[in-house]
């Protein structure tokens, strides 16, 4: 058994992986940037090494600094989490060359699946159906124009190296192509260090459904069922569930078999996810890409199958056989996850960095919150603004929604804006409750929401009066009392610390 594992990541996923390490009595080692000196993932680690400045290209993306840290710590393995270096084959190679175990697939599998164009080729060869699109990166804007005209609009621009919606743009007509092409390239460069983008025909009203697979080094490859990830904004998932509201065992079986086929085609090892577009009418599915890593939405699969995916990753990395066979896998109940972001849903989901002044995390039956922050934590401008994944399990989808609604209402985050109010509306939305999901859900939801806003206005006069009275009480408190001033002094100190953090390396 490994004695020590270095986690080459930050935030909630670093904390999640550390918990699996602790379960296995493995000592977790953190790395951190200057912006993360007192981050939760540092505080929960046994060891922590500074690997550079706040911008991730100067720290979390620096392969050599991570390798330095792992050698210094004496850890035997590296878990990359997701994002950052998780799908970087050069990193996997560098780790291997340093004599350290990389917790993930081989660099070869990552190469094949890491580029979406190459992944498409693999899928086609393995007999897995794909969406019409280019298999090579676009060479120029002219190339993009020509290809888009050939497929017919709408088309989708995607980063070859990408994931998470970054470098992805839906283009409705020829007018928007140039700006979208340039922005996608530039985002792809910033996020992945590779500006290549490619084009796909956009499938209308598609469902985004993915299959979790797991393979060991002994030739076993098993699927753990699907996750429905159709609720997306800016092409980034925000709510995921397991099983899909479609919940059709025969579809699960067919998609699972296709996913295992794709994984076997690259001799996959560890946890991976094969993403499909599913036509809601025909129930045909098309291979989109394979993510050669853990997914943000892994908790819903864990809640429904009972299998701890991170624990299993660690066990498989040290050569163990999978702890389950395909026949052992049972899907019990229903789980839904919300990604809680530090973003302002009333202002086009603009990031809302800052100091978290209050934090009440929901708990109780069926609720799991995988968070990466604590009260007083600073949400930095440098990284992905996700502060937590909130998941609810129920015996059926209705019970899972009941619990999710309760947990969202209980959740309180002060000092920054979050997507919580947005989710509170979604779980009360009739279309969501009915499970009518596709990737256009949020756009339609926003229209319904705009229409309903007027009605809510006069909502609860007494509650509004209480808000006014509380504000007035606070105002009068601040006029007097040295104690109140003390609290203010404390806040100023935090604010100054916050500003210093925003200035970065100053």
């Amino acid at each position, binding site marked *: 058994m490994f004695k020590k594992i270095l986690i080459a990541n930050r935030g909630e996923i670093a904390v999640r992986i550390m918990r699996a390490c602790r379960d296995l009595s493995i000592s977790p080692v953190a790395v951190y940037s200057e912006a993360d000196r007192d981050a939760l993932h540092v505080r929960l680690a046994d060891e922590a090494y500074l690997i550079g400045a706040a911008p991730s290209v100067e720290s979390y993306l620096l392969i050599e600094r991570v390798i330095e840290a792992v050698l210094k710590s004496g850890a035997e393995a590296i878990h990359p989490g997701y994002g950052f270096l998780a799908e970087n084959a050069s990193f996997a190679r560098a780790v291997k060359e340093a004599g350290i175990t990389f917790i993930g697939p081989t660099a070869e599998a990552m190469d094949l699946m890491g580029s979406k164009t190459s992944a498409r080729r693999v899928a086609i060869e393995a007999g897995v159906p794909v969406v019409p699109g280019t298999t090579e990166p676009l060479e120029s804007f002219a190339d993009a124009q020509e290809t888009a005209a050939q497929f017919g609009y709408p088309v989708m621009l995607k980063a070859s190296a990408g994931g998470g919606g970054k470098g992805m743009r839906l283009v409705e007509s020829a007018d928007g192509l140039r700006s979208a092409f340039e922005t996608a390239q530039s985002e792809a460069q910033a996020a992945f260090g590779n500006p290549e983008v490619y084009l796909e025909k956009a499938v209308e009203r598609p469902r985004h459904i993915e299959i979790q697979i797991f393979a060991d080094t002994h030739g076993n490859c098993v699927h753990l069922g699907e996750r429905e990830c159709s609720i997306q904004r800016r092409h980034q998932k925000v709510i995921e569930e397991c099983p899909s509201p479609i919940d059709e065992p025969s579809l699960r079986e067919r998609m699972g078999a296709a996913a295992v086929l794709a994984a076997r085609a690259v001799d996959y090892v560890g946890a991976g996810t094969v993403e499909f577009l599913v036509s809601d009418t025909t129930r045909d599915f098309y291979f989109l890409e394979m993510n050669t890593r853990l997914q943000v939405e892994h908790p819903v699969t864990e809640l429904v199958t009972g299998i701890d995916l991170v624990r299993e990753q660690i066990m498989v990395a040290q050569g163990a056989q999978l702890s389950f066979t395909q026949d052992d896998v049972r899907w019990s109940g229903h789980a839904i996850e919300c990604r809680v972001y530090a973003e302002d849903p009333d202002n086009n989901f603009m990031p809302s960095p800052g100091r978290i002044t209050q934090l009440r995390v929901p708990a109780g039956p069926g609720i799991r919150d995988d968070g990466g922050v604590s009260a007083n934590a600073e949400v930095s401008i440098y990284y992905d603004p996700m502060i937590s994944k909130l998941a609810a399990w129920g015996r059926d989808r209705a019970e899972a929604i009941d619990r999710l609604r309760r947990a969202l209402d209980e959740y309180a985050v002060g000092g920054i804006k979050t997507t919580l109010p947005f989710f509170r509306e979604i779980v009360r939305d009739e279309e969501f409750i009915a499970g009518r999901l596709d990737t256009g859900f949020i756009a339609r939801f926003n229209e319904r929401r705009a229409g309903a806003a007027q009605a809510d206005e006069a909502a609860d006069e007494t509650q509004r*009066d209480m808000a006014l009275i509380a504000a007035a009480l606070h105002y009068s408190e601040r006029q007097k009392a040295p104690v109140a001033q003390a609290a203010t002094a404390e806040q100023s100190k935090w604010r100054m610390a916050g500003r210093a953090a925003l200035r970065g390396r100053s």
Partner: protein
Amino acid sequence: MKLTAELDGAEQQIELRREGERVWARVDGRSYELSVRETEAGAYLLIDDGRVYECRVESTHAQPDAVQVHVRTQTYALTLSDPKRLRGGHGGAGGHGVDGSAQIVAPMPGKIVRVLVEVGAAVKAGDGIIVVEAMKMQNEMKAPRDGVVSEIHAASGATVNAGDILATIE
């Protein structure tokens, strides 16, 4: 104590008297007798004839009189003023200036990635003006209305703070 609050554009008069854990209040003519507990700094637990309201008051950084109050899952943004105290003008930053011009204001700290227009350019509402990057997301700041770009205060690569005026459209 008497205060004036501005909420959603409407003014409300608040009268308040507190004795320990009891509060008598009038808001716009409605009377309340409440029990109050301060559970932590800025958090007030109000009970109005059995109804529980846990209110958390937050000051927004720059303006001390502008507060946000969170009650249950709602947030109320309001500005308080004490009629007894002399006060200066509101000095609203961002949005529409007094002269009818429209300003593009950085909604968060970040970095300017690209400036898409030049001073003097005619733009339509919805046209992209400036691209700001923060938290790895690029956000295109769009023109709020038709007009001519009269000022640009942003250069590619520059770091900006929330509230900085990036461009003005007249």
